[in-house]
C-alpha cells in the first residue's frame, strides 16, 4: 500500500513537472505567470533527485556508508572535520553559488525565456549535478585530493598539468569578467559606488573585531556588519542627493576599473583576516538572505513573464552579445547549469568534512540543483520586466545609442516597444541618473529584483532602496570572488615561480607576495581594462571567453570522472559522465571556433580585428581614435589566442585521456585506481 501511495505521489509530481514544462514551451502571447517556471523547475528537480541521483549513487558509484570517510579517519578539527549533512550542504552551497547563475541567465534572456530555462533545468540535472556529485565522490575516496591531483594520478602527468593550467586561465578570465560586471553596475552611480566603497571600512572593522576583540566570533561580527551595511545602503541616497558628495562618488568606467584593480592588489597582499575573510562572512549572510528573499518574492508576487519564449535574436544578431542560440546560450548560462569551477570546491574542503559517503548525493547533487534554481529565479526576474526595458539596460551604446530617444527608436524597431519617458522615469524611480547601456546583467537583475521586492514590501516608495540593496548584494559577493580568486591565483603563481626561483614560492616573503600579487592583478586587470574601453561594452567579448573557460574546466572534470569509472569497471554506466562530457566538448569547441574564425566581426575576433585594421588603412578612423583602435586590434588578436589555447588544451587532454582509455579497453594497460584503502566506519548508522 505504501509503495502504491509513493508511486502515485511521484506520478503526480512527474505529471505536474511535464505539464508546467509544456506550458512554458508552448505558451505564446500574453504574459506567463512565474508560477509555471517555479513549478516546472521544482518538479523536475524532485524527480531527478529521487530517481536519477539515486541511480547514480547506487549503480554507478555504489556509495558505501560502511566505509569511513576522510573526515572520520583524519579528524583533526582543522582540515578534516566531520560535519552534519545539512550544515555541510549550507557550506557547499555558499561556496559554489557565485554571480554566475545570476548574471548568465540574465544575459541569456536576450534569446527569450525558453532556451535558457530549458538548459538551466536539463543541463543541471544531467550535467552539472552529476559532475559535482561524481567529483565529490572521487575526492572522498582519495582522502580529499584536489581535481589537479586526481587528474595527475588517474589520467597522467600531462592531464594534471593541463587541469592546473585550465584553473589558472579560468581564474584570470573570471576575475576580469566579474570586475567588469561591477564596473558596469557602479558606473556613474554615486549611490551604488558609495555603498560598495563603505563595505571596505565595514569589513576592516569586522576584521579587527574578529582578530583582536572577539577572536573567531563570526556571528557577532557579521550581525554588526549586516546592520552597518543596511545603514550605508540607506545613507547612499543622502550622498547621491548632496551635489558635493555625489561628485566624489560619480566615477567613470575607467576610474572604477583602476579602483577595482588597486582593491584586488590590496586584498591579495593584505593579511587574510583584515579584509578578505570578514567580507566573505558578510557576503555569505547577505547572499543567503537575498536569495531566500528573491524566492519568497517570486512566490508571493508571481510576476508575469513579459519576454517572449523566443526572440528574433536566436539568429545570432543579439545586442547584448552576438552569437546564435547554439552554442552561445549554453556558454552564457554557464554556472547555472554546469560549472567546471564547482569541481574545485567538490574536491576542496567539502570531501574533507563529509560524515558519510551516502551524504555525497544530497550535498553534491542537491546543492547544484539549488544553484540551478537560483538561475531560474534570475531568468524570471530578467524576463518579468518589459523586453524593451531589458534591452535598453543591457545593450551597449555602440548599438542602441546613448540617449533614451535613440535607444527607444532602435529597440522599438526590433519589435520591443519602448517609451523613452518610461526609461527616464524608471531610472528616476530607482535613484539613478540613467539605466541605459548598463551591460553586464547586474543592473537589469537589480531592477527585476527591486520590482519584485517593492511589490512585496514598501511599494514604489522603496523601489530605489531595493534597487541599491540588490546592486550592493551582487557587487558584494562579486568582490568576494575577486578577493578570494586573486589570492588563490597569487598562490598558484607563487607555486609556479617557486620552481624557477625558490624564495618566490615562500608565502612569508613580502617582495615575493607583492610581485606575484601585482602579476595576477596585472593579468586580469588587463582584460578588465580592455573590456571597459571596448565600445561594445566588453561583456560581449569577455563573458563568452569566461563561459568557454568554465565549460572547458567542466569537461576536464568529466574526463577525470570518466577515467575513474572506466578503471572501476563501470562500463555499463559510462554514459552518465560521457554524455555531458561530449555535449560540453561540442559546445566549447564550436564556441571557440566561432569566437576565433566567424566572419561576422561582432562574433569572430580575427574578423573584427581585420575589419578595424581595414578601417585604419582606409583612413576612416579619426586621428584622435587611432591609438585606441590599435589597442583594440591587439586585444582582439590576444583574445583569439587565449581562445585557441583553451581549445587546444581540451584537445590535448582528450588525446591524453583517449590514449589511456584505449589502453584500458584493449587491456594493454592495467587499471590502477588510486583510492584510499577501505576502512570500516566506527560510527553507528544513526550518527
Amino acid at each position: 500500500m505504501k509503495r502504491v501511495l509513493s508511486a502515485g505521489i511521484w506520478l503526480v509530481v512527474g505529471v505536474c513537472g511535464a505539464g508546467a514544462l509544456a506550458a512554458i514551451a508552448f505558451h505564446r502571447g500574453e504574459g506567463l505567470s512565474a508560477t509555471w517556471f517555479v513549478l516546472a523547475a521544482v518538479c523536475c528537480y524532485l524527480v531527478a533527485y529521487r530517481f536519477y541521483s539515486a541511480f547514480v549513487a547506487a549503480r554507478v558509484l555504489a556509495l558505501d556508508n560502511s566505509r569511513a570517510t576522510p573526515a572520520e579517519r583524519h579528524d583533526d578539527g582543522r582540515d578534516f572535520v566531520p560535519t552534519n549533512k545539512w550544515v555541510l550542504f549550507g557550506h557547499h552551497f555558499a561556496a559554489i553559488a557565485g554571480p554566475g547563475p545570476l548574471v548568465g541567465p540574465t544575459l541569456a534572456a536576450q534569446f527569450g525565456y525558453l532556451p535558457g530555462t530549458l538548459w538551466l533545468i536539463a543541463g543541471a540535472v544531467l550535467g552539472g549535478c552529476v559532475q559535482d556529485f561524481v567529483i565529490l565522490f572521487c575526492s572522498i575516496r582519495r582522502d580529499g585530493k584536489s581535481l589537479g591531483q586526481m587528474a595527475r594520478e588517474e589520467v597522467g602527468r600531462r592531464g594534471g598539468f593541463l587541469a592546473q593550467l585550465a584553473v589558472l586561465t579560468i581564474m584570470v578570465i573570471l576575475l576580469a569578467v566579474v570586475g567588469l560586471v561591477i564596473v558596469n553596475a557602479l558606473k556613474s552611480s554615486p549611490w551604488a559606488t558609495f555603498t560598495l566603497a563603505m563595505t571596505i571600512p565595514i569589513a576592516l572593522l569586522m576584521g579587527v573585531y574578529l582578530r583582536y576583540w572577539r577572536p573567531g566570533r563570526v556571528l557577532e561580527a557579521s550581525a554588526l556588519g549586516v546592520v552597518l551595511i543596511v545603514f550605508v545602503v540607506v545613507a547612499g541616497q543622502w550622498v547621491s542627493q548632496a551635489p558635493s558628495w555625489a561628485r566624489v562618488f560619480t566615477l567613470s568606467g575607467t576610474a572604477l576599473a583602476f579602483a577595482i584593480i588597486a582593491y584586488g592588489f590590496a586584498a591579495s597582499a593584505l593579511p587574510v583576516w583584515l579584509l578578505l575573510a570578514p567580507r566573505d562572512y558578510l557576503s555569505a549572510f547577505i547572499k543567503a538572505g537575498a536569495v531566500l528573499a528573491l524566492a519568497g518574492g517570486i512566490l508571493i508576487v508571481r510576476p508575469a513573464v513579459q519576454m517572449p519564449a523566443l526572440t528574433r535574436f536566436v539568429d545570432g544578431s543579439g545586442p547584448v552579445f552576438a552569437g546564435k542560440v547554439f552554442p552561445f546560450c549554453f556558454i552564457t548560462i554557464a554556472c547555472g547549469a554546469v560549472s567546471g569551477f564547482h569541481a574545485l570546491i567538490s574536491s576542496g574542503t567539502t570531501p574533507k568534512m563529509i560524515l558519510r559517503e551516502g551524504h555525497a548525493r544530497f550535498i553534491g547533487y542537491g546543492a547544484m540543483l539549488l544553484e540551478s534554481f537560483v538561475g531560474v529565479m534570475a531568468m524570471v526576474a530578467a524576463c518579468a520586466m518589459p523586453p524593451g526595458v531589458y534591452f535598453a539596460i543591457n545593450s551597449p551604446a555602440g548599438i542602441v545609442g546613448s540617449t533614451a530617444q535613440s535607444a527607444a527608436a532602435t529597440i522599438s524597431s526590433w519589435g520591443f516597444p519602448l517609451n523613452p519617458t518610461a526609461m527616464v522615469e524608471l531610472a528616476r524611480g530607482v535613484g539613478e541618473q540613467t539605466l541605459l547601456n548598463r551591460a553586464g546583467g547586474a543592473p537589469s537583475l537589480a531592477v527585476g529584483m527591486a520590482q519584485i521586492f517593492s511589490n512585496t514590501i514598501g511599494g514604489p516608495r522603496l523601489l530605489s532602496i531595493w534597487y541599491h540593496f540588490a546592486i550592493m548584494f551582487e557587487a558584494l559577493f562579486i568582490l568576494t570572488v575577486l578577493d578570494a580568486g586573486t589570492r588563490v591565483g597569487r598562490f598558484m603563481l607563487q607555486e609556479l615561480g617557486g620552481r624557477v626561483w625558490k624564495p618566490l614560492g615562500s608565502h612569508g616573503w613580502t617582495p615575493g607576495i607583492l610581485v606575484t600579487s601585482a602579476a595576477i592583478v596585472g593579468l586580469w586587470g588587463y582584460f578588465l581594462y580592455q573590456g571597459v574601453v571596448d565600445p561594445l561594452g566588453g561583456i560581449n567579448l569577455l563573458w563568452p571567453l569566461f563561459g568557454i573557460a568554465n565549460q572547458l574546466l567542466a569537461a576536464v572534470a568529466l574526463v577525470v570522472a570518466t577515467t575513474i569509472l572506466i578503471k572501476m569497471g563501470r562500463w555499463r554506466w559510462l554514459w552518465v559522465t560521457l554524455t555531458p562530457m561530449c555535449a560540453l566538448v561540442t559546445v566549447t569547441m564550436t564556441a571557440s571556433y566561432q569566437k576565433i574564425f566567424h566572419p561576422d566581426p561582432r562574433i569572430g575576433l580575427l574578423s573584427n580585428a581585420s575589419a578595424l585594421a581595414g578601417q585604419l588603412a582606409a583612413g576612416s578612423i579619426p586621428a584622435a581614435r587611432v591609438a585606441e583602435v590599435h589597442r583594440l586590434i591587439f586585444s582582439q588578436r590576444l583574445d583569439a589566442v587565449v581562445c585557441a589555447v583553451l581549445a587546444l588544451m581540451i584537445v590535448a587532454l582528450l588525446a591524453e585521456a583517449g590514449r589511456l582509455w584505449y589502453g584500458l579497453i584493449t587491456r594493454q594497460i592495467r587499471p590502477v585506481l588510486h583510492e584510499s584503502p577501505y576502512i570500516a566506519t566506527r560510527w553507528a548508522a544513526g550518527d
Partner: protein
Amino acid sequence: MLFLLRAFRIFWRALREWSGDAAYERYLCALQGGRGETPAPLSPTDFYLEQLERRYATPSRCC
C-alpha cells in the same frame, strides 16, 4: 512551545556550525578525542588565523 524552543536550539547550533562560530570548540573537542599524545591546543586567535590562512589558500568561492 517546547517544540519551538527545540527547533530554535537546532537552528542556532546549525547556524553556529555553518558560520564557523563553533569552529574553535570543535577543534578542542577533536583534540581531546584524539588518540596518543595530545599536543598543546592553539589559542583562539592562533586557531582563527591558521584556519583562515588554510581556507583561502585554495578556491573557496566559486563563480
